[in-house]
């Protein structure tokens, strides 16, 4: 792909990909491509059966869930360096549980998740590094989600979790 040199440059600039060897980066680049999403457009929707792992390079991607009667509620935004669609790396989930929409003009790396999974299974050392990174992403998301769950700014009268 013509993107490859561009992709490698971006890989080198992202902490996420550090610790991987040049060979591994080359292999990843082979099944990655760049995606440009203009502001307001969806990257994917709830229920989509697409199988990509994304890393935000520029812009902002909102993770949204549709609430009948209230519209889409944004529950997280992925900033540059953040990962979107991390569940593709795990063997379980096969459809999107939330939508992802660009709220600013955005640029992302899209990695073929099936190819990534196969690569990790074949090369355990690489698999370990990738899974560790994914575990970090999930841990941070979980912390954010927990703090959101506590609804710290709710009025005392309506706080669901009482002090």
């Amino acid at each position, binding site marked *: 792909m013509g993107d490859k040199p561009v992709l490698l440059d971006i890989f080198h600039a992202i902490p996420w990909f550090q610790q991987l060897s040049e060979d591994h980066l080359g292999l990843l680049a082979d099944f990655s491509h760049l995606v440009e999403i203009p502001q307001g457009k969806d990257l994917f929707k709830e229920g989509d059966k697409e199988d990509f792992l994304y890393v935000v390079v520029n812009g902002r991607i909102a993770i949204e869930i549709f609430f009948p009667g209230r519209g889409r509620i944004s529950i997280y935004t992925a900033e540059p360096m953040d990962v979107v669609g991390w569940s593709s790396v795990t063997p379980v989930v096969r459809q999107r549980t939330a939508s992802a929409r660009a709220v600013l003009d955005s640029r992302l790396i899209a990695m073929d998740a099936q190819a990534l999974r196969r690569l990790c299974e074949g090369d355990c050392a690489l698999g370990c590094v990738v899974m560790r990174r994914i575990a970090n992403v999930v841990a941070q998301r979980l912390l954010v989600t927990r703090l959101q769950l506590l609804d710290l700014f709710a009025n*005392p009268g309506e*706080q669901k979790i*009482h*002090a």
Partner: protein
Amino acid sequence: MPEIKLHLGSQVAIRKPVLDQVLGHLEKAGYQTIGPCIKDAALVYAPIGGLQDLPQGLISEQSGGSYRIKPSNNARYFDITPGAQSWKQFLFPPRSESFKLMKENGHWLEEGLSEDLPRYAFIGVRPCELAAIAVQDKVFIRSDFTDPIYKHRRERIFILALDCLHPGDTCFCASMGTGPTVESGFDIKLTELDDVFLLEVGSPAGLEAMQDLSVEAVDSRWLQASAAGRKAAANSMGRVLSDVASIPDLLINNLEHPRWKEIAARCLSCTNCTQVCPTCFCWDVEDATSLGGKNTMRTRVWDSCFNPAYSAQAGGNIRPNTASRYRQWLTHKMSTWRQQFGVLGCVGCGRCITWCPAGIDITEEIEAIRVDAKE
């Protein structure tokens, strides 16, 4: 008998009935004489006219959660150790008016408060109680802000203090360094022996109150009896609290000690201890308006850190259970108080032990926290 001229520091002896003349002088000088007396089978601090009002021939038997007044086998007047009341209620009244407002033409105007200018003469202040007043002086009279009610009353009181020669069963003033003898801070100091009162002049006001009394020189028998009595008292404390200097750090370093929960299983959070404690100072404000909305008044009332509402705020209660509230009280009294006011809040009077319905004894609890304590 040659005339004995009195001056500051003079020590003399008087036959006991002569004390009535001292009280008479005080009344003439405009003081309301308050002393220990028995009312409704309880020992209280109330206005007294003379010796006849004092609890002669009585002592108290005290222990955790128990107070009994019993006849003693002598005719002394001041043997009985204090009851639930302390002198705190006169300097820091349980209820007092802060301000009153009246609405006139849409504006709120301040109404004059009922003039309340008491001049109290405290008769029979024990060393622990004197120490407690000194502690509250530090709490209520400060360089940045002052409580006007406390300051006004404090400046006008007369203190007749007395050495405590018969400490009670829950007393531990010797451990706290606050007794059982009076060193300073009095207008007159009284030591009761079998035949006489020994009086020491502590101030010009004390001198005034002792004018024209029929006094005798203190002879060596009485001095010896007094000294022996004081020594015996120091060794007959009902309770001991050891190594007091280490307590502030002990408590603040063991905020998660299992003992707190154990105490909480017994503590009723009833607030008795804070009411009888002569140094506890927390208060609340009540704002009340007349039905027509034209008058409003703010009242200051005693509060307690054991009250569930004490630490409640929008968003929840910071101390929602007894364990946290008991811990607040004890760590404040015996630890953080020192950082706030330069002294500990406890004077070793033992009231909190006697008047606790569950009989919780802070000397015992502190020792229990020493077990398995963190450094």
